[in-house]
């Protein structure tokens, strides 16, 4: 049984069908990719899988548990974290504060009112370690709003990592990054895959085909192909939709 499964998901907004009978599964300790052209329904699919939207029909299961329609906080509590294509940082907080807030031990005492978070050396050290892991050592006390685009993108991933998830969803992590930064991100993802299962939506086909163990292709709100990178390069649906030519 796969760690994460989605069965026959349907989602519509008014009269627009966005997802139609989507069935996906993501294995533990693997990198799974979702690709497709703009408007294919990839981000909506991510939003349904991570609880932002409830599906109209279908079921989502994580580690054998039905998590269909659970709110994001409950899904996060089960060990699923995500990053966002449009960056979703706490801009008035420093890089370190952004990370610290995501740590499970801080979340566990989120209702504590007597504890001073800035004097919690354990949480601060753990946060600094996460920042070092994503290449932001030395930027702990910079406001998130003062970071460069690439640093903000790294912080976005760092927040998701800090939650120590079992499964990490990354929504277009290379969006807006240059080639060098993309290569370093690929290294980082290659390193973190040892400790967390990863699902990536990505436009950069080369990036995805180099990293992913399996890839699902979504088009017109449907899964049109699934398989390993080598299989997909030869898949006629992928070729017909011009996605395979990019890989």
């Amino acid at each position: 049984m796969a760690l994460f499964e989605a069965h026959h998901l349907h989602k519509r907004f008014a009269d627009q069908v966005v997802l139609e009978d989507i069935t996906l599964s993501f294995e533990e300790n693997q990198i799974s990719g979702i690709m497709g052209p703009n408007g294919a329904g990839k981000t909506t699919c991510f939003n349904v899988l991570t609880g932002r939207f409830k599906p109209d029909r279908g079921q989502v299961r994580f580690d054998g548990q039905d998590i269909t329609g659970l709110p994001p906080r409950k899904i996060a509590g089960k060990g699923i974290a995500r990053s966002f294509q449009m960056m979703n940082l706490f801009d008035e907080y420093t890089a370190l504060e952004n990370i610290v807030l995501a740590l499970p031990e801080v979340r566990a005492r989120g209702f504590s009112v007597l504890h001073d978070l800035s004097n919690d050396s354990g949480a601060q050290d753990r946060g600094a370690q996460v920042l070092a892991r994503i290449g932001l050592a030395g930027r702990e006390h910079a406001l998130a709003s003062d970071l460069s685009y690439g640093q903000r993108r790294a912080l976005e991933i760092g927040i998701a990592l800090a939650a120590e998830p079992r499964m990490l969803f990354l929504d277009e992590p290379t969006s807006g990054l240059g080639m060098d930064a993309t290569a370093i991100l690929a290294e980082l993802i290659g390193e973190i895959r040892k400790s967390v299962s990863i699902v990536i939506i990505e436009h950069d086909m080369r990036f995805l085909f180099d990293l992913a163990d399996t890839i699902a292709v979504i088009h017109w709100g449907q899964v049109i192909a699934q398989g390993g990178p080598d299989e997909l390069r030869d898949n006629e649906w992928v070729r017909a939709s011009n996605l395979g030519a990019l890989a």
Partner: protein
Amino acid sequence: MALQTLRSWFTAPMLFSFLIFGTMPLWIDAVGLYQYLGLEVMIWIIFALAVNMLLGYTGLPSFGHGAFLGIGAYAFGLTQFNVAANLWLSLFGAVAVTAALGAVVALLISHRRGIYFALMTIACAQIFYFIASKWTDVTGGEDGLLNIKRLPVDLGLAEISIQSNFSLYYLCFAAYVVIVVLLWRLVHSPFGKVLSAIKQNDSRVAFLGYNVWLYKFLIFTLSCGISGLAGALFAMAQEGAYINIMSLQWSGIAILIVLIGGGFISFWGPVLGVVFYFLARDILGAYTETWLLWFGLIFVVMVMFKPEGLAGIWRDGRVLLGRKPAPQPDSSANPSIAGGD
């Protein structure tokens, strides 16, 4: 370690404010002002700090918070008249009733944000205002609840009279000290950090696994409870509870005070805002009856040129004088995802 803990509970600005406000009755007459003004300032600071927990820290615009100031005043009087003429019991009654009604409102509005949250607070405040104006048997209607007593402070072994504005001021000051210390601790706790994160990006907070609704519910209820305490003190100051403070105008003034003081960027913003408002009222008011017009213009200018308010001016002044370092540009030379961008 103990010193560090102590410093996290009591900061220099906090002790400075205790010094200024703790001695205010001793020098306020000498600077041409009067004792009752100090009383008003102290009570409104407590109220403004409560409003700022919502607006400045959590990003929840409660445009009807004056209703809870009024409910606290009425509840204090009604407890005193109908339960027992005891200061502590009446204060507890005021805080408990206001927090309970605040919790009911919070149940209705905590799943909302932005303009919808603001409109629902206005709607709920209007309901309370309407009830207070029509339920004349209980509230006295337009006449208000008269003859509320300044009950003595019962310390067990001794009783202290607070009949004079001077002595009542020190009861208010004691409440201020407690509220400031507790709220300062709260905003630097994990709970407070989550509140501020909700202000910045509530959907991200939910995706981190926090129950955003519950945090909003709790802070709204707490803010109402503190407003109720301010209302109770105001009832003693005025020796009555009147409906006018429940009006939207007074709720608006509370928001204006918080914004002009800089509640969005500083814990001390509401304190600065209250002092500024009451000084403007008395100083501008000495020259013209239309002082609120001029105060409104000051507010407009402030929003246009310095939306961070008086606290923002103070912060910029410190940077200019070199007391506080300006934000540094990126000096990271580490190869990272960020390095190429």
